[in-house]
């Protein structure tokens, strides 16, 4: 059934390519065709519901570095579809916004912008949603450490009053996670993945604070 869907989608749209997927059918779509394709999926193919918008940061060295991922759902036929689209630029990634097609994309794209720094062109109100306005980093990027980077506390008056700063969290031997290899997660023994910064394992190089342009 999923093959059938992919075949029908791809035979009329030459810009699409099949995407390897472990679960639902997935296609790659170039960013230039993305909005038209998603509108077509919504209006003509029955994928009326946008479940999620997120992104992948493959690595600093990979080209293209960022891929936006859209999860769609067909309410009538109960089928899923994943659409992935690579961002052209790696230093300053952008993607056309689909907030005009689905209202829910508004906040999803804000979150993706907040975490990955992908600018959604045409978004009505592209602001940070989880971190505070003026936070200089994009936390889900690969070059951002889990412990965080030192920066100013939000609220300049409080920061001045208390002398508090946003500082890197002490990892204290953690994080405490189950490993990535050896059977299902439920059967793996959790281990402390020591990400503490010591003389043997120095703090990773600081990423450049990306400028907030708004």
């Amino acid at each position, binding site marked *: 059934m999923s093959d059938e869907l992919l075949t029908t989608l791809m035979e009329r749209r030459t810009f699409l390519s099949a995407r390897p997927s472990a679960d639902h059918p997935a296609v790659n779509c170039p960013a230039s065709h993305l909005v038209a394709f998603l509108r077509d999926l919504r209006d003509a193919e029955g994928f009326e519901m946008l479940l999620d918008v997120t992104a992948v940061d493959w690595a600093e060295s990979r080209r293209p570095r960022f891929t936006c991922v859209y999860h769609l759902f067909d309410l009538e036929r109960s089928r899923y579809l994943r659409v992935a689209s690579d961002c052209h630029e790696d230093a300053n990634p952008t993607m056309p916004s689909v907030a005009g097609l689905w209202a829910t994309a508004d906040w999803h794209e804000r979150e993706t912008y907040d975490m990955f720094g992908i600018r959604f062109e045409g978004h009505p109100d592209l602001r940070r949603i989880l971190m505070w306005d003026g936070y200089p980093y994009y936390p889900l990027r690969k070059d951002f450490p889990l412990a965080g980077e030192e920066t100013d506390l939000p*609220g300049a*008056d409080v920061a001045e009053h208390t002398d508090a700063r946003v500082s890197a969290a002490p990892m204290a031997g953690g994080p405490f996670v189950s490993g990535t290899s050896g059977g299902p997660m439920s059967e793996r023994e959790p281990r402390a993945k020591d990400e503490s910064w010591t003389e043997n394992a120095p703090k990773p190089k600081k990423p450049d604070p990306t400028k907030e342009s708004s």
Partner: protein
Amino acid sequence: MVTATEYGYNSKIEGDVVVSRADAVINWIRSHSVWPMPMGLACCAIELMAAGGSRFDISRFGMEVMRFSPRQSDCMIVAGTVTYKMAPAVRRIYDQMAEPKWVVAMGACASTGGMYRSYAVLQGVDRIVPVDVYVSGCPPRPEALLDAMITLQNKIRRERSTARLISSNR
């Protein structure tokens, strides 16, 4: 003619008077009318609600009057994870509370950041407000919170309240 002089307390003349130290009276009043401000930010707030409910009944200790306005309360119970984004709000609410005021850091997150060794979480609320009592647990049982509040009462009883009232700089 009076032949013997009565020194000290005479109940016929002075009525029902109890002599005590000012500190003892003030602290007795303060420690038994703690009005908590529930700064509920995560799952600890659920345990805080349980402590206020009939089973654990925080009113047995004289602090059941939870006020959601900082102007009407004198003990902030920080119950939950304080993110950096929330930190200025917590501090401003603390600043709005009238003196004298106390802070209880309830649970691992409020005390130290807890399991959230993360870029987004304040690693201990004592970085922005002065904490009087820390409660361990994730989340702490209501009994642990009651114990903390009793500890806070004992701490209030030891305060030099009169000296603070007289001197302008607290």
